[in-house]
């Protein structure tokens, strides 16, 4: 069973690495942020598998922290994006 879970762990990490291609190619900021979201989700899965394989229960706590931080990064991104739109909005209406 340990071998199978280790193989699944390696597979998840490979998928995480392939997902990084979207950061390289993504045309917009939102696409790059989605790749960061993918790193968050598959990183959590990898940590849960690692915690079970190596018998370290603390890995689950690390996964919990990663879940919170991944949500916070995206919320910070959205706050920055909408703040830019709101500062842009009055200028664009004045120009019309």
């Amino acid at each position, binding site marked *: 069973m340990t071998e199978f879970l280790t193989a699944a762990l390696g597979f998840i990490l490979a998928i995480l690495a392939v997902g990084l291609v979207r950061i390289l190619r993504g045309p917009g900021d939102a696409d790059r942020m989605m790749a960061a979201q993918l790193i968050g989700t598959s990183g959590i899965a990898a940590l849960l598998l690692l915690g079970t394989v190596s018998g370290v*229960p603390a890995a689950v706590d690390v996964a919990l922290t990663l879940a919170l931080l991944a949500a916070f990064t995206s919320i910070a991104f*959205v706050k920055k994006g909408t703040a830019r739109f709101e500062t842009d909005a009055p200028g664009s209406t004045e120009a019309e």
Partner: protein
Amino acid sequence: MSFVLDIVTIIAVSAGAFFFLAGTVGLLRFPDTLTRLHALTKADNLGLGLMVLGLLPHAGSLRDGIKLICVWLIVLLAGATVSQLIGYVARREGSRP
């Protein structure tokens, strides 16, 4: 009993890995931002849920099992909220001249 639990683990973790693969392929192959968002958020959250389901029989205690489920619930809540917010930003970006 242990054999049955191992089979459950193998099936659930394999299905979870498949959904992670589907999410990543969708993220790389779909044509525009909103379809990529759709592929990523749904497939990944389902994949993580299946992984947690597969790991539950190997949790050391009841407390560890509850903690695993809590991780999944937090990811679901955060993923649902964040996907709406990213979709909002992507729409605003797309409608900008």
